[in-house]
């Protein structure tokens, strides 16, 4: 099992992700640069947080049109695991792999704190091991999940809501913190599981999500 950690100009959680995957999840991982990289030889993709391309136009908009994201879209459609946290979640919605979009927090503030989350549907690989309420850090200015009424009903009916905030920090519709695609192999969430993989970091609840990668048959 080898995980590709994508790197865009402005990514800033790429090193955290690589270290967490290698040291704490216990899988092989390597960086893949946005314009000349390839997913050949990789079994999963981690789209890290940050401010890709300065978040010009919209958060994640430029990154979602990059060469490596076109390859990631093909990769995801083959059913292989893709996870995006924070800016990575924004990139996945902008790319069309996940429904909805992320807007500025209801109160303009950038929010940086630990939040409690509950796994809503336990059917995807990403939530299967999350058997209790978990605590993960968030750090975002644009994390308000929005989706129209029909879309919300669809993701509710199709069990695509992966995580809900216990106490909604940013005005997200239906308290949504993370969603999966219809097939369940693509997860996007605003909280940072890669920043919570050992007690030294204040907690290791992120492992309940990321350990899914160590269970994937490569």
């Amino acid at each position: 099992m080898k995980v590709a950690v994508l790197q865009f100009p402005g990514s800033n959680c790429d090193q955290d992700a690589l270290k967490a995957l290698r040291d704490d999840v216990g899988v092989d991982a390597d960086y893949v640069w946005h314009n000349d990289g390839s997913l050949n030889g990789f079994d999963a993709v981690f789209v890290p947080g940050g401010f890709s391309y300065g978040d010009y136009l919209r958060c994640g908009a430029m990154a979602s049109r990059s060469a490596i994201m076109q390859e990631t879209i093909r990769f995801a459609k083959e059913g292989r695991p893709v996870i995006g946290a924070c800016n990575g979640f924004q990139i996945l919605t902008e790319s069309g792999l996940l429904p909805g979009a992320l807007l500025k927090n209801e109160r303009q503030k950038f929010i940086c704190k630990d939040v409690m989350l509950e796994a809503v549907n336990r059917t995807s690989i990403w939530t299967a091991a999350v058997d209790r309420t978990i605590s993960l850090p968030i750090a975002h200015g644009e994390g308000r999940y929005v989706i129209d009424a029909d879309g919300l009903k669809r993701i509710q009916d199709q069990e695509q809501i992966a995580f809900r905030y216990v106490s909604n920090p940013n005005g997200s519709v239906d308290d949504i913190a993370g969603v999966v695609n219809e097939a369940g192999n693509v997860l996007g969430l605003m909280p940072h599981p890669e920043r919570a993989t050992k007690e030294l970091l204040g907690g290791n609840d992120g492992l309940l999500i990321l350990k899914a990668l160590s269970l994937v048959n490569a």
Partner: protein
Amino acid sequence: MPRVRVYVTLKPALLDSAGRTVTSSLQHLGFDEVSDVRIGKLIHLDVEKVEESRIKEMCQKLLANPVIEDFSYEVVG
């Protein structure tokens, strides 16, 4: 060279939190007549020739996100 002005605005149903803050700031400055502010983007495109279908395509593919935004455009100059 023709210029196209593309306007991108948040869909009316969505809360514009920045616009709400500007509304209260204007009211604070005494502009009581302001009841709502919504902030959008104005994008200038200089193009060699105007082909409407291609301008629409640019808006749909990149300049606006149809999930959250509406767009309109006008050709000037």
